[in-house]
């Protein structure tokens, strides 16, 4: 592993991991995803054509991996016929509150919000990562945030 690759890992691993953890709500799955994302990213970096920025490219791989893991987990849980409920990682208080609020959103709204809020991507970059129109991204973020605000207000009044 080259020093450049290590630097890339140090700069982005916590963002990739945090996104995965918020979406999958399982530490082990989030670590597996982070590992796979960087292995794929470093392997593909030599053939990277430079159509988008390296950062956008990395998060495109990350989103695909997270969605893939989410699908695999659904299959796994269905196979188990929900005999036992899945063991979600018990997060700390603040994170638990955020997870509880985010659970009210579907992935379609959750992913652009996380990319915007955790990673600080612009609408244009998120559109590039998710292969969507900028307008669609904007409307999904606004709709999702409105739902989150309403849920946060409800939680506070409880």
């Amino acid at each position, binding site marked *: 592993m080259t020093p450049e690759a290590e630097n890339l*890992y140090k700069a982005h691993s*916590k963002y990739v991991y945090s996104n995965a*953890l918020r979406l999958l709500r399982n530490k082990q799955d989030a670590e597996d995803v982070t590992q796979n994302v960087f292995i794929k990213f470093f392997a593909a970096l030599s053939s990277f054509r430079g159509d988008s920025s390296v950062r956008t490219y990395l998060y495109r791989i990350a989103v695909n991996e997270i969605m893939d893991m989410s699908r695999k987990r659904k299959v796994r849980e269905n196979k188990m016929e929900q005999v036992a409920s899945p063991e979600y990682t018990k997060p700390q208080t603040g994170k638990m509150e*955020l997870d509880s609020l985010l659970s009210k959103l579907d992935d379609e709204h959750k992913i652009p919000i996380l990319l915007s809020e955790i990673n600080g991507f612009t609408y244009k970059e998120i559109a590039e990562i998710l292969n969507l129109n900028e307008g669609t991204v904007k409307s999904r*973020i606004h709709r999702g*945030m409105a739902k989150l605000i309403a849920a946060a207000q409800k939680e506070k009044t409880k």
Partner: protein
Amino acid sequence: MTCNKTETLLYAYTKKFLPPVSQKEILAHLALCPSCTSKYKALIRLNGLFASSLQAPSKKVLHNIRIASGDKPFSLFRPAYALSFSAALFFCIFGATVLFKTVKNNEIKEFLTDTYSSFSYSDTEESSYITEYHLEDIGLSDTI
């Protein structure tokens, strides 16, 4: 500015995406509207939750990536190391054995030479015969 419009622009307002005029209009509305202020406060709280949700993965992840990228962790049980270690051990034992044997032979030789040289034989041939005879007896005749 109406509540509906403020709600729509609230997210952009917190991100400071809006032009200065709109930012001022929303600020003025928030000062007068408790309902929108409550939403604004909820949004600020959410921003705080997102900001504090950043977590680093465990060191195990980087270790696994390094291995997958071809960086082998140091291990004494890798074939090259094991072979080198065996060869070094063999030469050490062999060298020690040879050295020990040579030292012992020299000691015995010196002992015998000292012993027989103390006898007052005038005939040197007999003296050398006795030395050779005794060395032959203990298997060291070649060493002289």
